[in-house]
């Protein structure tokens, strides 16, 4: 339980794993752009091939990708049905009087579902192959140029780092509070939804109080270790843009180019 929440990073040493996090973020942005450029379902095969290529190179089992789709299954079904009902079309397949099932509606439903699946699967490729820390690091460096517009890139990254660090600690803490409240007779298991949500209050309030104390102590500890903001700070682990990164970016751009050519040609 404690490890699942730390992103869904699957440690590995594949080609994709070794890429610079900045490269992987850029790749994902380009990939998302690809799926959004497409208006016809058959062109989704190009981002699909790209995803398959990435999956093969990352040596991550398909199981993880399918798992990442699980939380959105109801959304998918809902969207699918909604589009069946509300897409207008010419080719009537079934006429029930109050509602006509059209070929266009079926196509549109499939198109949107596949697009969402590709989007989510692509995003989870990033989190599956990049450790949360590398991801934070990559984001900080990518956003660093925005500092001239007073964008707090360092602060944002530091906040993410600390949040990631404290997820397991707070999970432990909430478990302890839960047990303490249960030993005092609190009931978390019975009753309807509202009662159960209400019964969370005796866990949440102590958790909040202890989080504030933790924040206070952490701030003092950070100050004692000479923390004084992002100014003049160096990093032990330097990100390196290597040949592989250039290669990966070029391949991605190639996919984008092919897609654009096809879109223009059709």
């Amino acid at each position, binding site marked *: 339980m404690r490890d699942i929440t730390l992103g869904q990073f699957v440690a590995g040493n594949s080609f994709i794993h070794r890429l610079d996090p900045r490269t992987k973020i850029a790749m994902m942005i380009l990939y998302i752009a690809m799926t959004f450029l497409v208006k016809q379902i058959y062109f989704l095969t190009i981002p699909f091939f790209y995803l398959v290529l990435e999956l093969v190179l990352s040596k991550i089992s398909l199981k993880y990708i399918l798992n990442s789709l699980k939380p959105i299954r109801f959304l998918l079904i809902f969207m699918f049905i909604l589009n069946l009902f509300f897409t207008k079309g010419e080719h009537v397949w079934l006429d029930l009087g109050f509602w006509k099932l059209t070929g266009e509606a079926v196509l549109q439903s499939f198109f949107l579902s596949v697009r969402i699946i590709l989007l989510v699967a692509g995003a989870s490729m990033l989190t599956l192959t990049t450790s949360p820390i590398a991801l934070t690091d990559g984001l900080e460096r990518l956003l660093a140029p925005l500092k001239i517009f007073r964008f707090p890139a360092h602060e944002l990254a530091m906040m993410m780092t600390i949040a990631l660090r404290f997820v397991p600690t707070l999970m432990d803490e909430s478990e302890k509070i839960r047990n303490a409240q249960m030993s005092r007779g609190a009931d978390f298991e019975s009753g309807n939804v509202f009662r159960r949500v209400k019964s969370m209050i005796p866990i949440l309030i102590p958790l909040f109080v202890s989080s504030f104390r933790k924040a206070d102590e952490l701030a003092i500890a950070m100050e004692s270790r*000479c923390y004084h903001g992002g100014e003049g700070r160096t990093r032990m682990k330097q990100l390196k843009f290597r040949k592989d990164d250039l290669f990966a970016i070029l391949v991605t751009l190639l996919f984008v180019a092919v897609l654009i050519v096809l879109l223009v040609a059709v």
Partner: protein
Amino acid sequence: MIKFDNVTFQYENAFSPALSNVSLEIPDGEFVAIVGHNGSGKSTLAKHVNGLLLPVTGTVTVNGLDTRVEDNLLKIRQNVGMAFQNPDNQLVTTIVEEDVAFGPENLGVAPSEIRARVDEALADVGMSDYAEFAVHHLSGGQKQRIAIAGILALKPQILVLDEASAMLDPSGRAELLSTVHKLHKQGMTVLMVTQYMEETTGCDRIVVMNRGKIVLTGTPSEVFCHPDLLMESNLVPPEVVTVRDSLKQLGFSLSDNVLTAGQLAEELCPLL
């Protein structure tokens, strides 16, 4: 060298000062234990050493630098490493080696130099094998050693432990204490705030605090000769010392240097 000169400090909304007219000098390389019961001002004293708290009157200087001067603080904090009570609340990042690197990163040390410092610091606390572990998989004692490694990476001359062992189990406490003694042997000045009298037997000097004042100071054998004064401060000498004193009353001639079970056994055996 740490120098407290007539320091008084009062928390906001407090009825009485947490420190009143405290003067104390700790020369380089000394191992000092500060003991006292809750609210005696021992933690407040520790937090003055690196300028987390500033004296209301009087001065605190570290190697001649006044803690009240803002520009001195970074230098003082680099020189005075501080470990706190809760091992969880002082580690900043998820991975052990990245946490150890946090201090030198703040100082703007060059990346290759940070790498070297991190490896050295982890070796010093005997945690090299855990460099790439996630901190939440470690035990309390191990986390506290990582916290100390994080301090060592700043290359301080002074180590302040603010009840760093209070939340550890006995084995974690032993781990921490042996690490601190090892660092002291390498020349580190150590200021250890603690409630456990057993931990103080190996140090050079004990400072007993009560109600914001220093009531007694001396070597462990000197301090433990005053059980009455310790009682007044709501402290109890280590069990071995109590046993030693009871044996003395029964007519055994034992020296005041007997502070640990081993020493007691050594002196007692020839007498039996």
